[in-house]
């Protein structure tokens, strides 16, 4: 019953957000072009590297592309679902967040998922196709590894969700959102390539402390059969722990909320 209500509301809010986004069509199209360009140019970069050097740390060309494809999938999916977080600061500053709090709907849900916009879907479709395509180019993949891949991608989205919860919690406490979210984006950018490429201790920090590695590199490695079961379990354990901690943080933030003065 609950789920149905929330899905209905999510759908409603998504259509609203899309309608609003379409009112400035030019900007929307330009951003789409920009994202496609960013994606394509990075591909070119990898191609240039592979044509002139021995490549990156023993990984084959298509393996590296698959890492990038996985990164792209997780990145675009989380941006699509969590688009509303980018508007959060605005809501806190102009008092709209107060309205979230006084309605019988989870303010957390509203702040995270209330603004997915359809214009993110082309990019999402492209990332799915790219993942699909590059999987074929790899040497045979065991079906079990495919399943674990799927599992770990969902796992990555849970971590992304947890991090966004922290971001808006900080936003509730300090009204600072934009810098935190851009910091998150810069850090996740490091996951475009397999994180074990980075030198220690960076590699370790990036994998476990700021779990970029768990998010972006582990799923791809699992599909290639390079990830031991123990790490699969660690990943899941890590994401669930982080998720619950972040929820506690959100509850704390709400308790200490001092809304914008009248």
């Amino acid at each position: 019953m609950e789920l149905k209500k929330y899905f209905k509301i999510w759908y409603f809010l998504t259509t609203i957000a899309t309608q609003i986004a379409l009112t400035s069509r030019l900007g929307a199209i330009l951003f789409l072009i920009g994202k496609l360009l960013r994606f394509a140019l990075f591909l070119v970069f990898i191609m240039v590297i592979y044509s002139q050097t021995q490549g990156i740390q023993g990984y084959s060309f298509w393996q590296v592309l698959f890492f990038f494809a996985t990164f792209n999938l997780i990145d675009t999916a989380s941006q699509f679902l969590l688009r509303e977080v980018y508007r959060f600061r605005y809501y806190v500053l102009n008092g709209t967040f107060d309205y979230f709090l006084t309605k019988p709907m989870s303010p957390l849900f509203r702040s995270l998922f209330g603004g997915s916009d359809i214009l993110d879907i082309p990019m999402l479709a492209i990332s799915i196709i790219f993942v699909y395509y590059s999987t074929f180019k790899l040497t045979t993949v065991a079906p079990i590894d495919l399943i674990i891949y799927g599992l770990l991608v969902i796992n990555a989205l849970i971590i992304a969700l947890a991090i966004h919860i922290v971001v808006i919690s900080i936003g509730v406490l300090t009204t600072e959102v934009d810098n935190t979210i851009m910091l998150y984006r810069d850090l996740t950018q490091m996951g475009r390539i397999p994180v074990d490429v980075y030198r220690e201790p960076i590699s370790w920090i990036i994998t476990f402390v700021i779990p970029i590695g768990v998010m972006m590199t582990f799923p791809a490695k699992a599909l290639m059969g390079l990830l031991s079961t123990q790490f699969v379990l660690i990943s899941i354990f890590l994401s669930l722990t982080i998720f619950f901690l972040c929820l506690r943080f959100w509850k704390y933030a709400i308790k200490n909320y001092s809304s914008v003065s009248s």
Partner: protein
Amino acid sequence: MLEFSKMDTISVKNLVKTYQVFKKEPGILGTFKSLVSRKYEKVKAVDDISFSIKEGELVGFIGPNGAGKTTTLKCLSGLLYPTSGEISVLNFKPWQRKRQFLTNISFVMGQKNQLWWDLPAIETFLLNKEIFEINDSQFKKTLGELVDLLDAKDILNIQVKRLSLGQRMKCELIAALIHLPKVLFLDEPTIGLDVVMQEKLREFVKSYNKNFHSTIILTSHYMEDVQNLAKRVIVINFGKIVFDGLLTELVKKKAPYKLISFMERNKDNFVKIKKLGKIIEQDFPKLTIRVSSKDSNRIASQILDNFTVEDLTIEEADIAEIIREVFEKSKK
């Protein structure tokens, strides 16, 4: 003296709400200093207040800016977590934000919209319908009633950004009341509106209170809102309640006087009459004197009998003036 029973829709006991405000020094040096150690001070926005409100009452919360009215309202609606004290609204603790509680309240903030700017108002109503889980027939019925009361039939399908301020206000009200809340919190609802719209809003609030029997708390620093709407007022200043009771009682208690104005063309009489009360305004032949309420009738008849005055009027003391004095006194 204050009795709290289960009959009370709203009851507040010893509510305190303090904020921490950070102090920053100006300049670059201050900048680096504040990164390292921050000085903060505690501001008591609400300082131990208690009151209770029964179902269907329309209460006015008045006080100057920063008095603690909005903070109190935000504590009552669950937005803020009280520092100490007890609050009970509809037998719920507001800050727990239980579903049942939120479905039965509405919080309207003056000048802050909940309507989607780029879309017609009806979209916001439909969204609220989902959020409050209102069924189709009830939705239609309530919408119809509110639209009638507010005369808003033609504006529901126009983009909100294209509506005039008055039309927007009507739609905001519909959005806020579509779920027929039992308790309505109105925070400075008339702020920014012109005189005509303020009137209309007050009329609406009055009739809504009468027709739907909801409990309404309204905060304002406009005296006209209070004069025209609320029989009962709670006066707040510096986070403390200065007065809680009927407006007429406030007038009687704080300003037990009346103003008598008239014209006396006879110069000798003019001088004599001046002695009957405290002179407020004099501009021969016009005169306004202040006398105590209980003496007002006697003195008025005395004037009429013994002097040849024209245009005698007896007025209540200006309520705004009274309240201002109350604020002044409570500063000490």
